[in-house]
């Protein structure tokens, strides 16, 4: 049997991947490992006294009913953010894909929000919907709706989901548009000749051919909702009213950075990490089967 040796040297392939490996190790695995170590420690904010406490930080978390509430809430939020931003982005992409005058302008405008930092998104939405500062809030109140996210937990949750989904729409839009443009026009023409109406063409032709993009974005959006939304929550509600907008990642942020409780915060990140690994695993195992590449 003939060996398929493209590289003569045995070391060269390793040398070539080494920089990438080093970056992954230093910037991803090393901090992750540190977080796991930290989660077994009890330490003051300045790092002056350190005690090894085994699984105390984890036990403490699972004793706290509020932690379970925040797990359930996080799943709900992530689902709501992913579904709303994906469906809305798809709608926009389908519309922007049509031959329109000035479509470049629309596309550029639709991509813009992605460049905005999460806390800025928070501030932006506050200016629209804060009960006393907000422009939109004033109209809502004039319509007789008692809009008060400072005390109404459901309204605050809606606000966070809206803002977080809005920010992600541009990113999704970009991928959807690229996905749509990659579908050969001849397929549509064939379907049209066969007498398929636009809605039917969308569901039987466009949607299945977009499925790899949709699947990819689903994973990305869920990871985004899990990890990247604390800036928005911090500027908009700080987890309130009550605990109605405290998600897992916001709790990591507030316990660790605001509270200086690094052990518990690290334990929470470790749990969060496991959750996202499992979730991504499930997606690839079960959802990916429905994807046709």
């Amino acid at each position, binding site marked *: 049997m003939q060996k398929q040796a493209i590289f003569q040297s045995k070391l060269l392939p390793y040398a070539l991947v080494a920089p990438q490996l080093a970056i992954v190790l230093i910037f991803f695995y090393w901090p992750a490992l540190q977080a796991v170590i930290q989660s077994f420690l009890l330490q003051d904010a300045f790092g*002056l006294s350190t005690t090894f406490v085994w699984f105390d930080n984890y036990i403490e978390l699972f004793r706290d009913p509020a932690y379970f509430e925040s797990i359930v809430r996080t799943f709900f939020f992530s689902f709501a953010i992913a579904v709303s931003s994906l469906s809305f982005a798809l709608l926009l992409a389908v519309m922007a894909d049509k031959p329109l005058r000035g479509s470049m302008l629309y596309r550029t405008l639709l991509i813009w929000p992605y460049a905005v930092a999460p806390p800025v998104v928070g501030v932006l939405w506050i200016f629209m919907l804060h009960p*006393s500062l907000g422009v939109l809030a004033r109209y809502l109140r004039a319509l007789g709706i008692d809009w008060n996210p*400072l005390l109404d937990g459901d309204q605050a949750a809606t606000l966070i989901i809206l803002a977080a989904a809005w920010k992600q729409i541009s990113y999704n839009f970009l991928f959807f548009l690229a996905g749509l443009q990659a579908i050969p026009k001849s397929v549509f023409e064939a379907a049209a000749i066969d007498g398929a109406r636009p809605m039917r063409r969308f569901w039987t032709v466009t949607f299945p051919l977009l499925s790899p993009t949709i699947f990819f974005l689903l994973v990305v959006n869920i990871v985004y909702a899990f990890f990247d939304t604390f800036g928005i929550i911090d500027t908009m509600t*700080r*987890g*309130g009213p009550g*605990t109605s907008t405290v998600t897992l990642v916001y709790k990591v942020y507030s316990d660790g950075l605001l*509270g200086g409780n690094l052990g518990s915060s690290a334990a929470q990140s470790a749990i969060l990490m496991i959750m996202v690994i499992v979730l991504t695993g499930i997606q690839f195992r079960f959802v990916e089967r429905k994807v046709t590449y």
Partner: protein
Amino acid sequence: MALRHFGAAAALAVTVGFGASPAWAATEIQWWHAMTGANNDVIVKLANDFNAAQSDYKVIPTYKGNYADTMNAGIAAFRAGNAPHIMQVFEVGTATMMAATGAVKPVYKLMADAGEKFDPKIYLPAITGYYSTSKGEMLSFPFNSSSTVMWVNLDELKKANVDIPKTWPETFEAAKKLHANGHATCGFSGSWITWVNLEQLSAWHNVPLASKANGLDGFDTKLEFNGPLQVKHLENLVELQKDKTYDYAGRTNTGEGRFTSGECPIYLTSSAFFGNVKAQAKFNFTAVPMPYYPDVKGAPQNSIIGGASLWVMGGKPADEYKGVAKFLTFLSDTDRQVYIHKASGYLPITKAAYEKAKAEGFYKDQPYLETPLLELTNKEPTENSRGLRLGNMVQLRDVWSEEIEQALAGKKTAKQALDAAVERGNTMLRQFEKTAVK
């Protein structure tokens, strides 16, 4: 060859150049702070004045974000081994700083080691009490202090024919009248819900917030703010929230615009709100002392301070500490304190500066700037009104706010909410006690 010569010549030139300049000789002192706008200008001017007044030391102020950001930056820098010399820390970070023995250098020790003249008695005890041990040793240097006051829109009160209220029952009555008279969305409100309605309320009525003199006497303190006074007060707020006679304005000070816009004619918040009111309010205003419950014996007591102080970080060489000590003496100067007071609206920290501002007639035009001082010095501070020192205070406040919000939203009774706030807070205090350096 030529290159080597050039290098040597350049090195020589650099050495000579810097050696000759006095800037090189000055010991640099890093000062991290959280002041923006006009207050940032005050900080820069203070540093420049100090640098111009002598040539041995050079104070370099650096803005590091808001209070929490500045503190986190300082902690991170300490962990990385390059902490600043002076760090401005807000009052709620006091316990965290104090618990970090070795990370900070107490001010009384700094002054003694540096041989700098230092008399803790020249400072206003209501302010230094917050930053001192029970033995009276000053741990940090008070810089910008404020207190809670009640801001009043005089025009709107006049329109509704309401007198400025002094007690809580009077305030509720006034709010009801204002509510009926065109302020349907907000008769009265306030910022910093826990600071105003738990912390200040307790001190102002000489009721404990926590055991061990509110934590000043040790970290093994327990929260006690679920007593009858605090429960009754929260019940009142819950009742008035129903028709928006009182309307909750959030945990921090984001709701302050409701006063300057005229929406809420009565608003309880920090005296440091002064700058914004002056710049934005298009009506006659004043600030009066916080209301009190007249049926509580001895009320009002005295208020406690907010704002920030300067902490000196540990592990620096003695000659740098000497500069820090000189700088603190420089800040204590009477004229300088009067300047800070006038320019920023924060309180003067020395008795002499307060007297001087008074003698100059400063409070005749702006009586509301004296209000916080009158509150702080209203009576000799007691165990319950000297100050607060609770670990993890930033997060504690968030937990308390969460529970108060549940009560205001009608999901819990006032008593249930405060009981839960005490219980959850105590768990956090025990956690803090475990990590505090012994």
